[in-house]
């Protein structure tokens, strides 16, 4: 291994300097407020979890986990997502009474990156989980909340793609017969490889009608009109329930007045393998990757010994910031330069200003070599120097 330079950080780790920090905090704050207005309560969970519990229940690939050993020799992981720790808490502590709980979080998660080590391996997610509610209303609430959260953060140009992993599964299983063959076909969707999907289907020993149905599945992308198309592809109504869930969801989005933001994409298969029903991804202009995703995971809590349906979503703050561009302004800071003889006056003046809510830097003039350069970074400057009166600069 080559010697490390002193400025280097571990692969994928990033510093957040003041400007970015401010922008991050403002975005986080506006989203947190919105989530709180919807009645979600924020929680924190530990950075480290057991590999055997949270690590293996999480849908993040094993090679993406950061692992270490504790003093007893247990393998630990840096939490790779927040949904699994929250499922752990909900199952073991919170779900005692049978009623839905609404939780929110803003936390860093850790995922080692395989290629191009410059991609963040630690990044902040802000999201919610609604646990113990199996109705489509809970799914619709998640989608409505993600839309209003993003709008609160100032994002306008974005779209949601909504799929239903349960429908894809039932539909494939009915035609293909075995789980193994279903997984083989689903893999093409997960890899976004439509060409491979078509070739695979054409190579299967199936009736031409069944092949046509599988090929037509790729067309299930678009507006509410695809619901009918999806139903027409079904045999004996198996899977119809799932499609009707999507229709119900759409009606709810209409009632929220948000149907414009939502498009269906039944070919959507997430890398988060714990999803069981409706799932979605959010795409924004200027960012090539999804900025947020979520969905229903009705079996995850089972891994922690509790049977409960749940749905949630997570927004990636770094990608959201990228989508927002540089438009966010950070608020102004002013500066008071003082010399020792007017120290007391400067302190009092600063205190008054700070009480008014302004950001004020107090700078001993003897601590600065180049006053011009130093002044440039502040919105306005006041000199309390020597014996003259107060001077204000720009």
């Amino acid at each position, binding site marked *: 291994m080559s010697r490390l330079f002193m400025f280097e950080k571990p692969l994928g780790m990033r510093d957040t300097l003041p400007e970015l920090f401010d922008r991050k905090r403002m975005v986080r704050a506006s989203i947190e407020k919105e989530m709180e207005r919807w009645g979600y309560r924020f929680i924190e969970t530990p950075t480290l979890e057991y590999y055997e519990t949270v690590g293996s229940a999480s849908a993040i690939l094993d090679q993406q986990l950061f692992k270490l050993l504790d003093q007893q020799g247990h393998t630990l992981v840096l939490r790779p997502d927040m949904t699994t720790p929250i499922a752990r808490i909900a199952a073991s502590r919170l779900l005692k009474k049978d009623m839905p709980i609404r939780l929110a979080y803003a936390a860093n998660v850790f995922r080692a990156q395989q290629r191009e080590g410059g991609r963040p391996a630690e990044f902040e997610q802000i999201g919610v989980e609604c646990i113990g509610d199996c109705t489509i209303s809970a799914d619709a609430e998640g989608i409505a909340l993600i839309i209003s959260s993003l709008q609160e953060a100032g994002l306008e140009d974005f779209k949601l*793609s909504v799929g239903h992993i349960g429908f894809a599964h039932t539909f494939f299983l009915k035609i293909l017969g075995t789980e193994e063959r279903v997984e083989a076909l689903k893999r093409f969707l997960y890899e*976004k*490889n*439509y060409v491979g999907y078509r070739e695979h289907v054409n190579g299967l020993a199936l009736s031409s009608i069944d092949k046509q149905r599988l090929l037509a599945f790729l067309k299930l992308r678009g507006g509410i009109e695809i619901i009918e198309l999806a139903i027409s592809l079904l045999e004996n109504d198996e899977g119809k329930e799932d499609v009707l869930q999507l229709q119900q969801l759409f009606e709810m989005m209409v009632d929220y007045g948000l149907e414009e933001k939502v*498009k269906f994409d039944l070919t959507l298969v997430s890398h988060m393998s714990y999803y069981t029903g409706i799932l979605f*991804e959010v795409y924004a202009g200027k*960012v090539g*990757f999804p900025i947020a995703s979520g969905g229903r995971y009705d079996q995850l809590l089972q891994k922690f010994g509790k049977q409960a349906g749940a749905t949630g979503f997570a927004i990636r703050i770094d990608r959201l910031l990228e989508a927002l561009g540089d438009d966010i302004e950070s608020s102004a800071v002013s500066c008071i330069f003082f010399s020792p003889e007017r120290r007391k006056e400067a302190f009092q003046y600063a205190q008054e200003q700070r009480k008014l809510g302004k950001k004020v830097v107090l700078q001993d003039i003897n601590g600065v070599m180049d006053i011009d350069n130093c002044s440039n970074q502040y919105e306005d400057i006041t000199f309390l120097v020597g014996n003259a009166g107060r001077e204000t600069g720009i």
Partner: protein
Amino acid sequence: MKDVLTIAMPKGRIFEDAADLLRQAGFQLPSEFDDSRKLIIDVPEESFRFILAKPMDVPTYVEHGVADLGIAGKDVMLEEERDVYELLDLKISACYLAVAGLPNTKMNNIAPKIATKYPNIAAAYFREQGEQVEIIKLNGSIELAPMIGLADRIVDIVSTGRTLKENGLVEYERIVDITSRLIVNPASFRLKEERVNELVERLVKKLQSSKGL
């Protein structure tokens, strides 16, 4: 105003085939387009912007979203494994990936050496065959490697087989058939849905009509 679609095109071998295909699908592309040395070419009549990239880099531009769409060989898609939608097999620039070497030679059975431009594909292929090999990554003139004793075998694309023959090499195994693919960035696939769909439909029509001939 229509959204501008940015399309990453591969320079070199596949370029002409790809440009011809777009023309045949009814898109008005300028004729000097082919031999221009510019890297970015705007075609305002069609609201297209073309980026001319190294073939191996096309999926990278598309994954990062700086290009909405791209035309990339399946060889590149297999090697790079980028997170993009592979929408259409354009059936152009057909060739295949093969294992080749000097005639009548056996691979060294302790640590056979494989020279290739495609280290991921080669490693995966030999692993599947149950062979543990040493991969040597080269950037071109792969045929040299067995001739001068750098490697036992090469993994490379073969279109006519002429290059192999001229260098006294023979093909041992065919790994996979290759054609060019239309790929799209997942965000563009949603946000520029109408334009992407229109392009796909016109290409599908063109592909189907040539299949009928």
